[in-house]
């Protein structure tokens, strides 16, 4: 990340950190899994296709001639949209990163969130979808950004590797 960030904006800071996650975990020997994002994109683009078909039918054949098809398309649009909304809200939740360890194939999911006007980045780790391995930590964002607003990726890398060690210790207990 070579762009300075307005460190007073909690949303911008957390967004920058979110975007830094893939490269950090690449260095930590993880491969990113895109299953969630891909599913979301599939549902999303099928919504777009449904609307495009409806638009073209209307333009080419005229409203009165295609009413039953349009009813089907509008129903499909409503169903897909609610599916999309459900997926975003309950399946994806606030998951920003999912990856697998390259050797052990351990799966890690990371949820992140921020609160307005607080220099904090709330991170939740879940290993292999096990509730027992859940770890909630808070990162003081002032520690990983310098005065000019540049993200210090090495500091962030160190912080994440520490957290991963804590999780693996926790599991051994």
């Amino acid at each position, binding site marked *: 990340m070579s762009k300075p960030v307005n460190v007073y904006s909690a949303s911008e800071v957390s967004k920058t950190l979110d975007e830094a996650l893939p490269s950090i975990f690449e260095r930590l020997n993880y491969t990113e899994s*895109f299953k969630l*994002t891909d599913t*979301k994109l599939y549902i*999303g*683009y099928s*919504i*777009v296709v449904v*609307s*495009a078909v409806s638009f073209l039918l209307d333009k080419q054949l005229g409203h009165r001639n295609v009413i039953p098809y349009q009813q089907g398309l509008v129903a499909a649009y409503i169903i897909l949209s609610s599916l999309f909304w459900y997926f975003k809200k309950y399946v994806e939740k606030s998951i920003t990163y999912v990856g697998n360890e390259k050797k052990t194939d351990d799966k890690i999911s990371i949820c992140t969130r921020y609160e307005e006007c607080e220099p904090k980045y709330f991170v939740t780790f879940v290993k292999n979808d096990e509730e027992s391995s859940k770890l909630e930590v808070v990162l003081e964002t002032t520690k990983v950004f310098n005065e000019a607003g540049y993200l210090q990726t090495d500091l962030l890398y160190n912080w994440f590797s520490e957290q991963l060690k804590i999780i693996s210790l926790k599991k051994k207990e």
Partner: protein
Amino acid sequence: MNIRLELAKLLNLCFVFASAYMFWQGLSLFANTDSPIVVVLSGSMEPAFQRGDVLFLWNRNTQNKVGDIVVYENEGQDIPIVHRVLREHHSKSESQNKQFLLTKGDNNAVNDISLYKNKKIYLSKEKDIVGTVKGYLPQIGYVTIWVSESKYAKYTLLAFLGLSSLLGGE
């Protein structure tokens, strides 16, 4: 370059158009008409409706009453006309749903016979009527007239939309 991130951004842009269009389509099906919302283009119903006023149409009624304000389209012409029903004639038997209407603009001196095509002297409710006016919003539709009639306005609007979608990513 993260292709998934770009696709997600594009998806957001598509959603804006898709949701707007599907809302319109849903409204069309609900009101059973191909244009559930129309903008008044002529002054023939003044002072009730002026250019740029927005009208909401409903077309699930099988018959119109005298006094209803209807929107009709002549065959082969895409210009919707908003006028009031002056006369109606419908069949006594319930099975036949045919209704004939004569219309006139409140601000016009004579009825619409000279506007009808093919030497018709009546409109058919089933074939010619786009919808019956149920609701009214003043002047808001003037934006669409302005955009469709002035090319500068069109370019300004397009430029504004383009800029905002570019800046929207930040």
